[in-house]
C-alpha cells in the first residue's frame, strides 16, 4: 500500500474501488466511487484534467465570428470561428488582465470580445487589440503575449471538436482508438456531413456522473425501465417482438459500445409505420445510396442497427431512434449536469427532419418517455448507496460469454480505464502520474 493509498483511506474511501476477479467471473465497483467527495475531487484532476473532452461541433459556428460558450470539464471556455482567419478556436473564457469572463452570452456572432470590466478587447482569433489608456503601461510590457489563451490541446475530428487540459496527451485519433470507427459509422451513415440541430437539452440529476456513463450504454435496463416506451412503439404499429439484440465491445482507452438490431425505426434508413407513406420512398432512396456508397453489409449496419457509443470519459453518441450527442459533468459526487444535442445529416429533407425530431423526442430528452425514468433510476441508486450495508456494485454480467448487448462488458471497459486514472495500480505504486 502506497502512501497515497494511505492518505486516501484516511480521506474516507476504499483503497481499491475497482475489483476484477476473472476466475470467479466477478467484477465489482466500490460504491465510494460514486459517493465520496475526495474521489470527485480526484476525478476533476486525474480524469477530466487528462482526457480529451468534447467541446462542440463545428456546425454550431458555421460563419466567421460565430461563437458558443459552455463549460468543458467544469471550466468555462468558448468556441469561436475567427472572423478573419475562419479557423476554429477554443479559448479559456477569462480576460488576461484581471480575470472576468470575456464571452458573456451563450451564442452569437462577434467581431471582437470586449471585457466589460476594464474594456480590454480581443479579436476572434484571440489577439489583444484594445487596451484603454495604454500610456499607463511601460514600454517593456509585451501586449502580444496577453492574447486570449487556448487550452493546451485542441483537435477537430471530422467536425467534432475536443480539447485536453493535458499538454502531453496522445493525439485525438490515437486516443479515440476503436471509437473512431464508430464515429465514422455515425457520420458516414448520415451521408458524410452532419450538423447539430438548434435547441439544447440542458438538464440535471442528483446522482453520480458515472451512473450516467453506465446507463447510457446499458442494454440490460431497457425492457424493465422503458416498458412505457415499448408500449408506445407497439401502439404505433412497430413490431418490437424481436427486442434489442446485439453485442457489447471494449474499444480501448475506456471507450466502449453496444451495438444491435433496432426494433425501432431509424430515419437513416429504416422505415416504420409512424413515419408515414411519404417518407417510405425517400428512406428507400437513402438506403439505396448507402448501399451504393458503402456496400450492402455496411449499409445494413448503418441503417438497421443502433449503437450506444461511449467516448471516455463523458461523451455519449447514441445512434438509436435518432442521434444524440450527450456530455455531462459532475458538480459534486452526487450531482451531474447533462447537456444533449441532436445530430442529423446536414441539409436533410424537411419531411425526414420532422420524422427524426419526432423520433428523438418520444424516447430521448428530459421531456421524453424514457429519459426521466433513467434519471429516476440513477437517483434511486444514489439514494440506495447512502443506505450502506452493501459496499459493492456488481458489474459481472457477461464475463463468462461473448458479451451481449444486455451484458456489462462495455461498462467494465470504462471502469478499467477509470481505475487506471483514479487509483494507482499496485504495480505502479510510487510512480508519478
Amino acid at each position: 500500500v502506497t502512501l497515497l493509498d494511505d492518505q486516501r483511506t484516511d480521506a474516507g474511501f476504499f483503497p481499491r474501488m475497482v475489483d476484477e476477479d476473472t476466475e470467479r467471473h466477478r467484477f465489482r465497483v466500490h460504491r465510494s466511487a460514486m459517493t465520496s467527495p475526495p474521489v470527485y475531487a480526484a476525478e476533476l484532476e486525474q480524469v477530466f484534467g487528462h482526457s480529451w473532452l468534447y467541446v462542440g461541433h463545428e456546425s454550431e459556428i458555421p460563419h466567421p465570428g460565430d461563437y458558443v460558450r459552455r463549460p468543458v470539464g467544469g471550466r468555462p471556455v468558448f468556441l469561436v470561428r475567427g472572423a478573419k482567419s475562419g479557423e476554429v478556436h477554443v479559448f479559456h473564457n477569462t480576460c488576461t488582465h484581471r480575470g472576468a469572463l470575456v464571452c458573456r452570452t451563450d451564442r452569437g456572432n462577434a467581431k471582437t470580445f470586449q471585457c466589460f470590466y476594464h474594456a480590454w478587447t480581443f479579436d476572434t482569433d484571440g489577439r489583444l487589440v484594445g487596451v484603454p489608456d495604454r500610456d499607463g503601461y511601460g514600454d517593456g510590457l509585451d501586449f502580444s503575449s496577453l492574447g486570449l489563451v487556448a487550452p493546451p490541446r485542441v483537435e477537430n475530428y471530422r467536425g467534432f471538436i475536443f480539447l485536453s487540459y493535458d499538454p502531453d496527451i496522445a493525439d485525438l485519433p490515437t486516443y479515440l482508438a476503436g471509437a473512431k470507427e464508430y464515429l465514422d459509422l455515425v457520420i458516414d451513415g448520415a451521408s458524410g456531413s452532419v450538423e447539430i440541430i438548434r435547441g439544447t437539452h440542458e438538464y440535471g440529476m442528483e446522482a453520480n456522473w458515472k451512473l450516467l456513463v453506465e446507463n447510457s450504454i446499458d442494454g440490460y435496463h431497457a425492457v424493465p425501465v422503458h416498458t412505457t416506451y415499448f408500449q408506445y412503439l407497439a401502439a404505433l404499429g412497430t413490431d418490437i417482438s424481436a427486442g434489442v439484440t446485439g453485442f457489447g465491445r471494449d474499444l480501448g482507452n475506456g471507450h466502449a459500445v453496444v451495438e444491435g438490431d433496432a426494433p425501432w425505426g431509424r430515419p437513416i434508413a429504416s422505415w416504420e409505420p409512424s413515419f408515414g407513406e411519404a417518407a417510405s420512398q425517400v428512406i428507400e432512396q437513402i438506403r439505396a445510396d448507402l448501399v451504393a456508397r458503402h456496400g450492402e453489409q455496411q449499409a445494413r449496419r448503418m441503417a438497421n442497427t443502433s449503437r450506444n457509443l461511449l467516448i471516455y470519459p463523458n461523451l455519449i453518441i447514441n445512434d438509436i431512434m435518432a442521434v444524440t450527442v450527450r456530455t455531462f459533468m459532475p458538480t459534486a459526487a452526487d450531482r451531474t449536469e447533462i447537456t444533449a444535442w441532436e445530430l442529423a445529416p446536414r441539409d436533410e429533407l424537411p419531411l425526414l427532419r420532422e420524422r427524426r425530431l419526432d423520433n428523438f423526442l418520444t424516447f430521448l430528452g428530459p421531456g421524453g418517455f424514457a429519459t426521466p425514468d433513467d434519471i429516476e433510476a440513477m437517483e434511486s441508486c444514489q439514494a440506495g448507496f447512502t443506505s450502506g450495508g452493501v459496499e459493492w456494485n456488481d458489474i459481472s454480467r457477461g464475463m463468462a460469454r461473448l458479451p451481449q448487448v444486455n451484458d456489462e462488458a462495455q461498462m467494465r471497459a470504462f471502469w478499467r480505464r477509470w481505475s487506471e486514472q483514479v487509483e494507482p495500480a499496485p504495480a505502479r505504486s510510487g510512480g508519478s502520474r
Partner: protein
Amino acid sequence: MTLSAPGSVQAPLIDGLEAVSRPVVEDLLYLEAELLDAWNLDGWLQLYTEDARYVIPATDTPEGDPDRDLVLVDDDRMRMTSRVERLNSRRAHREYPHSNTRHLVTNVRPGTPGAGVLPVTAGFAVFRFRNGRGTYYVGRYDYRLAVVDGRLLIRHKRVELDLTALRPAYDVAIIL
C-alpha cells in the same frame, strides 16, 4: 364537479369566439390547472381538440420551431394520449408515485380572434414536490383556443420557460 372523475369534466359552453370574455378564458385555464394538480389527466385531455398540439421549446431556444429545432416536448393528440397513459400507469417511474404539483396561472390576456382561434397568453408558475424535494417551472403560456360543439377547447399550448437551463428542475416528466 368532481375533479377526479374524468367523465364530469366539461369545458366552458360558449356561443362563439367573439363572445369569449376574459373570465371565460380564465375558467378554462384554471380548470386545466386544477385537473393537472388533481392528476386527472384523462379529464385534462378532454379540454383539448382532436388536432391539438402541446409544445415546450428548449430552454436555450424559447422561439424554437418544433418542425425544425430540437424542443423538449412536441406532442400531437396521439402522443398527448400516450403521455397520459404513461403517467397513469405505474411504470412512469419518474412520476410513480406522483409529484404534488401546483399550477398557478396569471396575467391572462386574450388576444383578437382570427382564423377560428383565440390567441391567449398567460404567465405561469408550476411547483413540483416529491420525496421531500421541491422544484419549480416559471414561464409563459401561449394558447390558441377554438370552439368545438359549443365548447371552448384548447387547440394549441406552447410553454416557454423562463429557466435559462432545465437543470434546477431536473426534467419535465410532469405536464406543465
